[in-house]
């Protein structure tokens, strides 16, 4: 997908100015609340009209103020998934799913109900009314409904924000699966760095109605590390664990990680905040932390009031954060070897 935007829009005291050309199948739009993310989504989908500029999606002009082109939303084929599912309360799940499907021109219709219902696990729910569904189920129906419209672009506007932490991590695989399986490019809108990293490959950063940067989610997460209460979240891919003295030992980077979190005793992703890693210059003889990993410092980077340390841990990457004083005191420089101490309780299974 290639998206070319040149937009200006004033709404009272707020003004949005975006000049952006990006290509990719998994795009992100990141910014704090009130930065204009949802306004931008509305402009893209044709739900509101820019004051000036143009929108070109894959070579097709959706809006052009000069040429007086303004396709109505129903002809843009941009589907939306909202924070609040926005399911039609008077239609059952099947009718909701088919709403966009029936209205998609037959020549462009390429996704069928059975397949989507199967992928999203909705087959047993087809005859239900939305009011009877749980939050996660509703969001899956909303996602399926958008996908079944065979859109050229899927905009997901904070689709996970209304869900609790646990549910959020269970929906993410569905989001990814659906876009990959049905090859629908998407624009994922969120204020969560972690969601950006899990979902997108390029991120446009919006602040106070202005486009600040277009970066990879990884770069963004490192730049913002110092401002995030949770620090930088390391996402570690671990193998199937074995039981050991009340802990789980997950294979990782040629060694093992000891975790006390036993919620999911299988291979997958483990979350670790950069704040939970303690760096020691020498091997601490006696320490309560169950994980002691020998690492090499790859490089240091500035992250606001903190210093980010990129560690090479037997080929795998770990990001830790320390205060600048500590970096100086411990003489942490690129190439130096160091021990990373992590408590078994610091990890969280995703």
């Amino acid at each position, binding site marked *: 997908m290639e998206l070319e935007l040149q937009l200006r829009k004033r709404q009272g005291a707020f003004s949005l100015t975006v000049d952006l050309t990006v290509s990719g199948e998994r795009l992100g739009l990141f910014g704090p609340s009130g930065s204009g993310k949802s306004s931008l989504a509305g402009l893209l989908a044709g*739900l509101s009209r820019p004051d000036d500029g143009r929108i070109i999606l894959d070579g097709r002009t959706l809006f052009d103020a000069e040429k007086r082109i303004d396709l109505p939303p*129903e002809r843009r084929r941009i589907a*939306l998934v909202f924070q609040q599912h926005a399911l039609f*309360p008077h239609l059952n799940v099947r009718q909701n799913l088919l709403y966009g499907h029936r209205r998609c021109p037959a020549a462009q219709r390429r996704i069928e109900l059975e397949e989507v219902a199967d992928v999203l696990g909705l087959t047993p729910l087809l005859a239900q009314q939305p009011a009877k569904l749980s939050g996660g189920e509703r969001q899956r129906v909303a996602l399926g409904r958008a996908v079944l419209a065979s859109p050229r672009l899927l905009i997901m506007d904070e689709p996970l924000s209304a869900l609790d932490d646990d549910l959020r991590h269970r929906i993410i695989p569905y989001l990814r699966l659906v876009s990959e399986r049905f090859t629908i490019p998407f624009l994922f809108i969120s204020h969560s760095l972690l969601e950006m990293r899990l979902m997108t490959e390029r991120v446009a950063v919006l602040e106070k109605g202005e486009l600040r940067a277009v970066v990879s989610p990884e770069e963004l997460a490192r730049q913002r590390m110092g401002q995030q209460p949770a620090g930088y979240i390391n996402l570690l891919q671990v193998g199937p664990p074995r039981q050991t003295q009340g802990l789980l030992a997950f294979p990782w980077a040629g060694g093992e990680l000891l975790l006390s979190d036993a919620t999911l005793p299988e291979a997958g992703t483990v979350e670790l905040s950069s704040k939970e890693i303690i760096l020691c210059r020498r091997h601490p003889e006696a320490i309560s932390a169950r994980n002691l990993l020998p690492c090499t410092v790859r490089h240091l980077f500035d992250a606001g009031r903190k210093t980010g340390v990129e560690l090479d841990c037997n080929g795998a990457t770990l990001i830790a954060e320390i205060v600048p004083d500590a970096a100086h005191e411990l003489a942490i420089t690129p190439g130096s070897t160091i021990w990373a101490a992590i408590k078994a309780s610091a990890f969280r299974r995703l």
Partner: protein
Amino acid sequence: MTIAPTDIQAMQLSVKVGAVATLAALPLGFYAAWLLVFGRFRGKLLLELLFNLPLILPPVVVGYLLLLLVGVEGPLGRLLGMAGIRIIFTWKAAVLASLVVGFPLLVRSIRLAMEGIDPQLLQAGRSLGAGPLDLTLTVILPLSRRGILAGSSLFFARSLGEFGATIIVAGSIPGVTQTLPLAIYDYASSPDGEGTALLLCLVSVVLSVAVLLLHETVLQRGKAA
């Protein structure tokens, strides 16, 4: 106390006028409410005032203005006369009077329902490929259902009681344009009609209470859903 055939006709006529007026007013009322809620045009406030005018004007004034409009010499009346249609002093005039006087109640009720629809549902519908008309029929109409039902019953009840405008444009011809309230008025002003007047009042009360009950049931169910 006797019940004349014209009294039965008055009851039947009241119900008929109410039913026809309700059916005729529904599509108009829906469109008017749609315009007020979703329309974007200049003069919206003016239109709103116009729709609500019959609510605050004395029905007699509404009736007199209608008489000027559709009377034999009125601009609309002359036009209809050329087509061979006469409205004035027929039961159709009673329908027209009921329609105009009850219209604000209907519009108000449908409008409230429409305003209660989550705008995101409408945005979702549009982005899923529904044009404005499609969206109106498949999302707005079904989601305003309760407002339409509640508004219709209120409108019907109002039209059962219509007096002031009706007596001016339809007159009070027994068996032709005399509805229940007009018949009661007649009996009440004749020396030996007291008993019949009271009986017809009772019929009127029963009819209105039945309609009001229906109205409340619709509202209650709306709250539960």
